């Protein structure tokens, strides 16, 4: 899974039927130090995340397992809203 911050939302009226009612969010990937890394991308939301929130998402085929028994055509799905991050990087890491 990867860390990111929700920076916006994408609306699509015409979409795959299994995506009806699902939210598409724009997410900026972040390092644990909360620096931007890579380009923003679009994730499906499974937890009710909103703009500005720190989240992590699951990628790959597993992203389509979020709403079983319906398999949604998603390659990235937000699976948690982060309350707290603690980082400890030693000299050797």
């Amino acid at each position, binding site marked *: *899974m*990867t*860390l990111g911050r929700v920076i916006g939302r994408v609306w699509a009226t015409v979409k795959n039927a299994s995506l009806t009612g699902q939210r598409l969010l724009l997410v900026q*990937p972040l*390092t*644990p130090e909360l620096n931007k*890394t*890579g380009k923003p991308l679009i994730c499906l939301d*499974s*937890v*009710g995340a909103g703009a500005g929130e720190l989240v*992590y998402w*699951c*990628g*790959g*085929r*597993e*992203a389509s*397992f*979020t709403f*079983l028994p319906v398999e949604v055509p998603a390659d990235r*799905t937000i*699976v*948690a*809203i*982060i*309350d*707290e*991050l*603690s*980082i*400890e*990087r*030693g000299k*050797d*890491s």
Partner: protein
Amino acid sequence: MLIARVVGDVVATQKHPSHEGLKVLLVQPLNLDGTDRGDAVVAVDSVDAGVGDRVLLATEGYSAMTSVNRPNSPIDMAVIGVIDQVELVADAAAP
């Protein structure tokens, strides 16, 4: 699988039901020389690893969700071992 170092913890109250009860770690993948290999990732923990541990990281869904006994879950990374030792045979790695 990759060698990685646990660099932190993640706490999330609002999360997908399949993640409930799982410990979630921040993990930095490493090269063989110990330098960082790309950005740190978020992984579920199946072996009770802690910050500073050098671990084995499964980076594919099926193995990751199997390691925590949550089949068909949105889980794509898991810590599946704590590494005691890595032996690199220099001659064998030469082209």
